[in-house]
């Protein structure tokens, strides 16, 4: 069975949006390599849910912000599966702070994880996708904050804006080889990472119309599928229409 499955790598796969993407792609029939940095127990739970549902998943511990970890991760996947068909660059961090209070180290850490790491993953994976005759799909997970940031999001928004530009550039480079590279930009998604935005006194997810990780996983599933074979270098925003709302943006 494994021999026929397309091979996927999902970074930041132990929780939140990444976990939902892992489960969705496994349900779609892919063998999913769940990449996690610290939360091995949560990654294991994702793997158990996938296996219980009849899918296949492998756990891979790696810090994708570290180049040798990236190369080892890709080497391990190739050693075990011989090919890589799908890469989802989902791992990311948020360290919001006003620009005047942001230390250089924090700025560089955000850009390292959110922008440099996807670059290193793509650089390592693309040659193997070329080996497969271009049977490759890469999806970078951005954010609506790249285009509509709030105060304090300079590093995060810059990293995601850079990731969107990087996605289009890579699509221009490898698209003619059959490798599709696209971006999914989630809006407000109810996860552990965004829990601080829902502190007491703020809107509840239900009131604010927050999305779920499964909403993003569905969009990723579409872009991975053959239904999206003519979709290249695009940005798919999944935000429940929030970026179009003027009311909240105008509130002072």
């Amino acid at each position, binding site marked *: 069975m494994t021999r026929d499955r397309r091979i996927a790598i999902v970074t930041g796969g132990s929780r939140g949006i990444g976990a939902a993407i892992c489960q969705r792609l496994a349900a779609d029939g892919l063998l999913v390599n769940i990449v996690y940095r610290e939360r091995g127990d949560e990654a294991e739970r994702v793997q158990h849910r996938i296996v219980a549902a009849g899918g296949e998943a492998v756990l891979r511990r790696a810090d994708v912000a570290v180049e040798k970890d990236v190369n080892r991760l890709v080497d391990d996947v190739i050693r075990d599966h011989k090919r890589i068909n799908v890469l989802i660059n989902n791992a990311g961090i948020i360290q919001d702070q006003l620009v005047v209070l942001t230390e250089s180290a924090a700025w560089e850490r955000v850009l390292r994880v959110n922008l440099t790491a996807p670059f290193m993953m793509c650089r390592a994976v693309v*040659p193997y996708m*070329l*080996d497969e005759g271009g049977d490759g799909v890469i999806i970078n997970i951005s954010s609506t904050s790249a285009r509509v940031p709030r105060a304090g999001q300079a590093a995060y928004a810059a990293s995601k804006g850079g990731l969107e530009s990087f996605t289009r550039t890579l699509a221009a*480079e*490898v698209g003619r*080889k059959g490798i599709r590279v696209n971006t999914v930009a989630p809006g407000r998604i109810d996860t552990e990472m965004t829990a601080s935005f829902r502190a007491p006194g703020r809107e509840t997810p239900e009131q604010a119309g927050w999305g779920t990780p499964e909403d993003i996983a569905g969009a990723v599933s579409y872009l991975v599928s053959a239904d999206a074979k003519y979709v290249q270098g695009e940005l798919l925003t999944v935000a429940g229409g929030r970026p179009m709302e003027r009311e909240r943006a105008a509130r002072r």
Partner: protein
Amino acid sequence: MQDIVDTKFEALVQLIREVKPSLAATPITRDQSLIDSLGLDSLDVVQLARRVRREIEPELSVDAWIQQNKTHHWSIESLLDAIMHAQPV
């Protein structure tokens, strides 16, 4: 020896046409440049070199051949020569 060179050349031509299908009906000779004569770009060359390593000569030093491009100007002859003289690292 010449038979071996000819066999490798034919295999190389086949890989060049796989990487750039538009060359299917184009005559390919050893004195041509992959880039200047046949229109491959740098991504094509990377893809070709990886296929050469996988299907013709696993010991080919791709990096060394690419680094010498100012001398060989991406000629097919130079790639064939690198294949024939490949040695385990």
